[in-house]
């Protein structure tokens, strides 16, 4: 261990020219010796920590409970959230998270359960997981589901490994190609590469659908499968989805559905009925569990009969059937040809409780209404903005739609400027520059939880910004004007990665 005297004064990495932070770091609050907790007198003998684990130079905050509460409340007030404003972030489904989800997740039986508790003492938690598996299977029309994956991208990874394992089990190791449309989420090609397979990109046609001619050209006995999002990331239902599925199945490949856009399908169409073999859900999108910095996510994977043996595990199974008086006995089991574990313990269990609460609260008809309202809201906004913003596809959309943030008569205005200006109206920007194939893309998803008044307010702001772009473009270029932090230099931020607020004291490990 190095001497520590010279390290008691950590240096910050902030450039001298950087403005002072809006809120001090918690390390810069408080005073030596101040504390926020009083520990009870110990009733067991004290045991010293091993010397080699003691570090005198650690710079830990010394703050009171009130210092801490005010610090984090102030930080939260600097932020935009779904609880404070409209959040039309396309492809991310930032819907309102009903507070009943939180109440249920805090029930002591769930919140205090330990993952290593004996299954006999976890029957409630296991019953919840089993029921959720069944519901997710039913909603997708699939035969079963695993709740293991920790997020959507891990769900994709599981699905593609399952497809690969299926082909290997059938003696077809040459199937190493995964077809991905050019409108896909970046996670799709990344998943394919992570699974050791090759990406074959297929272009979209002028209507935003997969180019069927090109699809035919690349199909062969080296194709493992295809990953596709429904509705696709351009916000439209694939017109030829049945033909696409038939072409892939016809050459021996399997169909993977990226479930990012399930908010446009709940109770209306089942992926298995469309011919999909495996898919993932994003509980943090479709089923209203916390999203983004609040996560963690949860990306259960559902599969048809032939892929069930390959599901990641463990999954919850019924060990003994119940009868009239006694509930079934639940336990954990690995599917017989499982691709293995993806996550410590049993997935992100707290998220499973929230999703279970959400599905229970809505019920079957309620879930169908979710989709109907989500699609209605998106089409309402799309129709009102038609003619105001260029739109690459003039057709009915799913739960989101894409428009373009530029005009010939407003040279120098980009999608980013429009997004930044929206913040001045108290609205979170839509998704920018995705899908990649639409220039200056703005992907807008209001979700079903927004009222007509909220949608109208957004539309009025967008119309106003479109006028400003032509009459006073500097308003957009310099935006946002009203937020705690103005326009950030994202080029500088991307090139000079400073990920820590201060340098940790150097020590030998």
């Amino acid at each position, binding site marked *: 261990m190095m001497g520590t005297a010279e390290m008691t004064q950590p240096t910050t990495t902030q450039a001298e020219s950087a403005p002072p932070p809006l809120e001090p770091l918690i390390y810069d609050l408080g005073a030596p010796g101040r504390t926020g907790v009083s520990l009870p007198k110990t009733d067991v003998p004290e045991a010293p920590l091993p010397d080699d684990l003691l570090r005198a130079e650690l710079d830990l905050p010394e703050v009171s409970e009130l210092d801490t509460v005010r610090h984090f409340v102030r930080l939260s007030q600097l932020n935009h959230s779904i609880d404070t404003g409209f959040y039309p972030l396309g492809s991310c489904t930032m819907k309102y998270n009903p507070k009943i989800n939180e109440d249920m997740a805090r029930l002591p039986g769930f919140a205090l359960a330990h993952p290593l508790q004996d299954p006999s003492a976890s029957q409630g938690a296991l019953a919840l997981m089993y029921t959720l598996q069944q519901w997710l299977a039913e909603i997708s029309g699939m035969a079963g589901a695993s709740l293991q994956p920790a997020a959507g991208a891990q769900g994709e990874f599981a699905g593609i490994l399952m497809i690969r394992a299926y082909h290997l089990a059938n003696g077809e190791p040459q199937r190493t190609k995964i077809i991905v449309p050019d409108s896909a989420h970046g996670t799709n090609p990344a998943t394919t590469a992570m699974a050791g397979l090759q990406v074959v990109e297929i272009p979209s046609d002028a209507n935003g659908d997969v180019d069927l001619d090109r699809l035919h050209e690349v199909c062969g006995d080296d194709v493992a499968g295809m990953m596709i999002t429904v509705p696709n990331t351009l916000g439209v239902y694939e017109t030829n989805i049945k033909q696409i599925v038939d072409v892939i199945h016809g050459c021996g490949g399997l169909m993977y559905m990226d479930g990012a856009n399930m908010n446009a399908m709940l109770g209306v169409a089942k992926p298995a009925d469309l011919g999909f073999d495996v898919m993932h859900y994003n509980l943090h999108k479709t089923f209203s569990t916390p999203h983004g910095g609040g996560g963690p996510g949860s990306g259960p994977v559902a599969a048809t009969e032939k892929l069930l043996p390959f599901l990641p595990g463990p999954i919850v199974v019924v060990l003994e059937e119940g009868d009239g008086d006694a509930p079934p006995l639940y336990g954990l089991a690995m599917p017989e040809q499982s691709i293995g574990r993806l996550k410590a313990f049993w997935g992100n269990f707290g998220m499973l409780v929230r999703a279970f609460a959400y599905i229970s609260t809505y019920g079957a008809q309620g879930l169908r209404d979710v989709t109907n309202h989500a699609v209605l809201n998106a089409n309402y906004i799309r129709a009102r903005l038609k003619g105001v913003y260029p739109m*690459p596809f003039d057709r009915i959309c799913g739960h989101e739609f894409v428009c373009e943030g530029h005009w010939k008569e407003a040279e120098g205005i980009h999608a980013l400027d429009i997004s930044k200006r929206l913040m001045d109206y108290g609205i979170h920007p839509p998704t920018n520059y995705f899908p990649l194939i639409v220039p200056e893309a703005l992907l807008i998803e209001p979700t079903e939880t927004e009222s007509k008044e909220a949608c109208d307010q957004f539309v009025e702001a967008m119309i106003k910004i479109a006028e400003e772009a032509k009459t006073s473009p500097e308003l957009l270029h310099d935006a946002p004007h009203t937020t705690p932090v103005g326009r950030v230099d994202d080029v500088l931020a991307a090139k000079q990665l400073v990920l820590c607020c201060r340098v940790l004291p150097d020590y030998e490990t």
Partner: protein
Amino acid sequence: MDNAFEKGFPDMAEWNTPEDLRYTENDEWIRVTGDTARIGLTDYAQDHLSDLVFVELPDVGDALTKGEAFAAVESVKAASDVYAPASGQIVAVNTKLDDAPETINSDPFGEGWIVEIKLSNPSEVNSLLDAAAYARHCASRE
């Protein structure tokens, strides 16, 4: 770079397309000098990617196969592969891009070159677009 949509959106900008180069539909250029050639990204590509913040470069000695990705560029908007317009072996890499990826934005056809290769099959270049055809290809995507 790939843009599948052909729409009737009026020209918003003009892109430089030097006459002495050949081009790919994926927006790479190649300048042949004898049996070696320099490769880079076009003005159209840099304009659509916007400010580049990172370039992942290959190594000298690496083999390039026509149509396959050999480098990647990242802007504040997107990450994108760079595809080989022709096959060959890399004899020089523009390491200046490590510290100054924005050189591709400021001088795409000059200082912003990416690699220099020894062509293994010089005739491959004949099938690439000439400046006029590439300019039409750019215009058709706006």
